[in-house]
């Protein structure tokens, strides 16, 4: 029985019914990896340890929730004794001496980390074109980007190589690639998942999250990924609910908000058509749509491009060639050590963001940029708070369109930044949001975004699941259904 494109649930059943052994499952996974190297989705593989773990599970079967499930981990999570590069030359030989809490949580729940996935360098990008390890291919078409920064994770799930992958989302880096690759991905409420061991990009925006074939699988993963971690003081103290409990509750009477300011008329007709279809479908399930206003939402992208670079310019200062990571050859003095190491170790997008960050924090500019952006951020959060008094969830397209071609965003970084128009607001406000596939445009999948109120992942997943049990966009796969 082929394992490709199976969900976590399906594979769990196969393992329980002994339709396949743990060892066979992992062997087949690596087989799929081998036949899909053109995707360039992995940076480091973990074959021996995975086979070893599988053999253990065959000897001593486990009833853990994710027992034996192969999973790909974004190369932004520190994995003990397994190379972690963050998509950068700077960390090309970095072997962490510890594992991220979220990795430990997942492995303690039984999953097997088969490898580290390729990503935009230091999570900065929306197309996985900035990785030092080369571009990732979207399984839906040659030379198409998978989205970013969790491009590798999205690609391996979309290609059916693994049922699940971890991702991180700072401005949309789970949801946008999920949309462009036709899979489901969720960014939880800020603080749900510990950031201990997650290489920091923008500390007040970064969150880890699950990427899988269904909302239900995302819920199962989320159950294991979330924990209160005393090593991360920004991690929430809330008890983790069972996110799978309410999936099947009907959504009759649900109030769904549509953001006026998102002005969908500016989008491609085909994209709007897909969105309207989804709207109609939700109405048929009993949901009501209400127009809401988020007056400051148009400032989300500029706000993000002040706050995120500012935080990253500081977070990346630790990469200095002294304690870990790359060092330039034969520096003649300390200045050269720093400047040469960092100039050689970082790619252009990372450098741009560090420079912007230093600029907006520098004396004379701090008030006008950084402080201002943090104030606008509060305005945006307040807008959401008001909106959620009127509606239960907010809906929008995840992206402006389907996957674009490599290199097509040209030389202007701002064109790339605008890709995250719909996703960024949820990060600024710390709210949970997800993307599920809801249609095809030009034979490429696109996604539907749902944004929820603080701590309301269960509701989001319920709304998403209801859609998925009555449609089959999430079942489409690149090899068979590219014609829709």
């Amino acid at each position, binding site marked *: 029985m082929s394992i490709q494109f199976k969900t976590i649930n399906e594979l769990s059943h196969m393992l329980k019914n002994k339709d396949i052994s743990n060892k066979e499952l992992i062997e087949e996974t690596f087989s799929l990896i081998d036949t899909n190297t053109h995707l360039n989705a992995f940076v480091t593989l973990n074959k021996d340890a995975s086979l070893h773990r599988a053999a253990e599970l065959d000897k001593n079967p486990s009833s853990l929730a994710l027992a034996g499930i192969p999973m790909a981990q974004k190369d932004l999570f520190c994995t003990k004794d397994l190379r972690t590069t963050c998509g950068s030359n700077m960390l090309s030989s970095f072997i962490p001496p510890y594992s991220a809490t979220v990795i430990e949580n997942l492995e303690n729940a039984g999953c097997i980390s088969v490898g580290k996935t390729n990503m935009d360098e230091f999570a900065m990008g929306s197309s996985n074109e900035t990785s030092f390890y080369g571009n990732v291919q979207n399984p839906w078409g040659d030379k198409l980007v998978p989205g970013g920064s969790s491009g590798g994770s999205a690609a391996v799930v979309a290609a059916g190589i693994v049922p699940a992958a971890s991702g991180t989302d700072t401005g949309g880096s789970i949801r946008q690639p999920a949309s462009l690759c036709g899979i489901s991905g969720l960014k939880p409420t800020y603080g749900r998942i510990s950031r201990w061991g997650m290489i920091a990009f923008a500390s007040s925006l970064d969150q880890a999250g699950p990427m899988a074939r269904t909302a239900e699988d995302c819920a199962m993963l989320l159950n294991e990924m979330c924990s209160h971690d005393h090593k991360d003081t920004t991690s929430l103290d809330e008890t983790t609910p069972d996110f799978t409990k309410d999936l099947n509750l009907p959504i009759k009477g649900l109030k769904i908000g549509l953001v006026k300011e998102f002005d969908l008329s500016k989008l491609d007709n085909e994209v709007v058509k897909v969105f309207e279809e989804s709207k109609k479908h939700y109405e048929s399930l009993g949901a009501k749509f209400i127009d809401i206003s988020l007056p*400051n939402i148009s400032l989300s992208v500029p706000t993000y491009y002040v706050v995120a670079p500012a935080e990253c310019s500081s977070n990346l200062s630790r990469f200095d060639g002294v*304690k*870990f990571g790359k060092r330039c050859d034969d520096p003649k003095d300390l200045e050269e050590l720093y400047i040469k190491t960092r100039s050689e170790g970082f790619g252009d997008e990372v450098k741009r963001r560090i420079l912007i960050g230093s600029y907006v924090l520098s004396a004379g500019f701090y008030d006008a940029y950084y402080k201002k952006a943090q104030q*606008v951020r*509060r*305005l945006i959060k307040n807008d959401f708070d008001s909106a959620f008094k009127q509606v239960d969830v907010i809906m929008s397209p995840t992206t402006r369109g389907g996957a674009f071609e490599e290199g097509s965003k040209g030389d202007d970084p701002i064109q790339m930044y605008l890709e995250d128009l719909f996703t960024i607001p949820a990060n600024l406000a710390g709210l949970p949001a997800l993307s599920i596939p809801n249609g095809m445009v030009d034979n490429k999948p696109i996604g539907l975004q749902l944004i929820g109120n603080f701590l309301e992942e269960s509701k989001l997943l319920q709304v998403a699941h209801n859609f998925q049990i009555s449609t089959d966009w999430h079942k489409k796969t690149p090899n068979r259904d590219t014609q829709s």
Partner: protein
Amino acid sequence: MDKKTVSTIAYLSRLALNEENGEKITQDLENIIKFVDQLENANTQNIEPLASPLEKTAKTRYDEVTAKNRKETFLERSPKSNDDYFLVPRVVE
């Protein structure tokens, strides 16, 4: 953005701007700053800056030593070190 500002920022960030990338990066920076200048339009009078989306206060820890000696582990991961120290080119104060 004048040259001096750009080179100051580059120095603060310990990044080199050279013949090849200097102009493009300066141009990119100008464009991005122009883009974020939109923020000027927002009315933020009396608005408290939001440093974190969490409306809560910090948990702290007890004063106890929990770290083990991991000197070897750390030094072996460093680009340059001897048995005891991380090494960098000599610093003159």
